[in-house]
């Protein structure tokens, strides 16, 4: 049972979905997002969406892969770039794109839990590689996660949220 006293602590965190559309003009592209000061970011899931077929039916199959780089820890938490479809959804399933960059609406599906905590001022860095022979590929990336305030900072009064 949830009580009102607990609600204050629940409200300290907030869902924060981060979205960017990236265009893959070269063999590589990057998704960069810097976490605000005063919050950790708990990354729960990553959703990817990109077309592999254009509206005329031409298949350009970019076969995109990605690798994440944890800036603060200075490490790549995978051995090689990973295919999008093996981590998130919907990937390229059923996605087409027209000449103006409009992608078809595809159903969102499950994604693998990540549960990675990024410290404040860390930069989430997702490096995308792939082959793109015909059309520039639009890549939609949405991070599902939560902002968690760092309560011992002065901006939160420095005393775990208490004033005295």
């Amino acid at each position: 049972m949830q009580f009102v006293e607990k609600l204050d602590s629940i409200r300290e965190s907030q869902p924060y979905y981060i979205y960017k559309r990236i265009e893959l003009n070269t063999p590589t592209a990057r998704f960069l997002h810097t976490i605000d000061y005063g919050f950790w970011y708990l990354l729960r899931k990553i959703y990817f969406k990109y077309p592999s077929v254009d509206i005329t039916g031409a298949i350009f199959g970019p076969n995109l892969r990605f690798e994440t780089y944890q800036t603060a820890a200075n490490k790549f938490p995978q051995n090689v770039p990973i295919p999008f479809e093996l981590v998130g959804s919907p990937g390229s399933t059923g996605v087409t794109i027209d000449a103006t960059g409009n992608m078809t609406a595809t159903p969102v599906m499950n994604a693998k839990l990540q549960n990675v905590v990024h410290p404040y001022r860390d930069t989430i860095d997702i490096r995308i590689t792939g082959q793109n022979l015909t059309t520039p590929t639009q890549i939609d990336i949405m991070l599902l996660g939560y902002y968690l305030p760092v309560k011992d900072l002065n901006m939160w009064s420095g005393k775990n949220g208490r004033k005295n």
Partner: protein
Amino acid sequence: MVVKPFSQRINPEAVFDIQNHQYSEKLLLADTVPANSTKLGKVNISNLGHFFCQFITGSFTTIGTGAGVDSGISYLSGQMIDGAGQRKLFNDRIPLDLFLSPGRRKSNVAGAAASGLFFPIEFEYCFTMNSDILFDVVNTSDQPNEYEIVFHGIRIMSDMIVNNTVQSGGRIVRQAAQPQRRG
């Protein structure tokens, strides 16, 4: 192995006591966004108590340009905002098909079939009573498009409402909200 549906005897009085304080609730936010424009949709958290949202589901139409054909293209993007303090819960407007399930639904105009998958997406946040959930949506089509979002969560009744409910024999009496007493 036989699976027992109930591992223990249910005490109706205890269950009702819990339900008098909090219960599963769903809030619907539905709106139509005119062609090539933005619109701020909102749903009010009433004064019954706080609303702890756990999941969101939703659907939308994909009526395209020109003759109003259901083109299947994602035209709607939206940003969720907590009306209490205007706290933004998305960094930007996000295409609705990236976070709403079952997503695209069949409209009453010609077009391809809609999707049949269903996967509620997690969205854990406590909206305070008397506040609004705001959803700032842009429609890039030259035809109007509709969307519907359901917030699945738990209503946490304020002590005052619960006391009034007990005193009135189970009938919920709506009153103006009072500040919560902190223990």
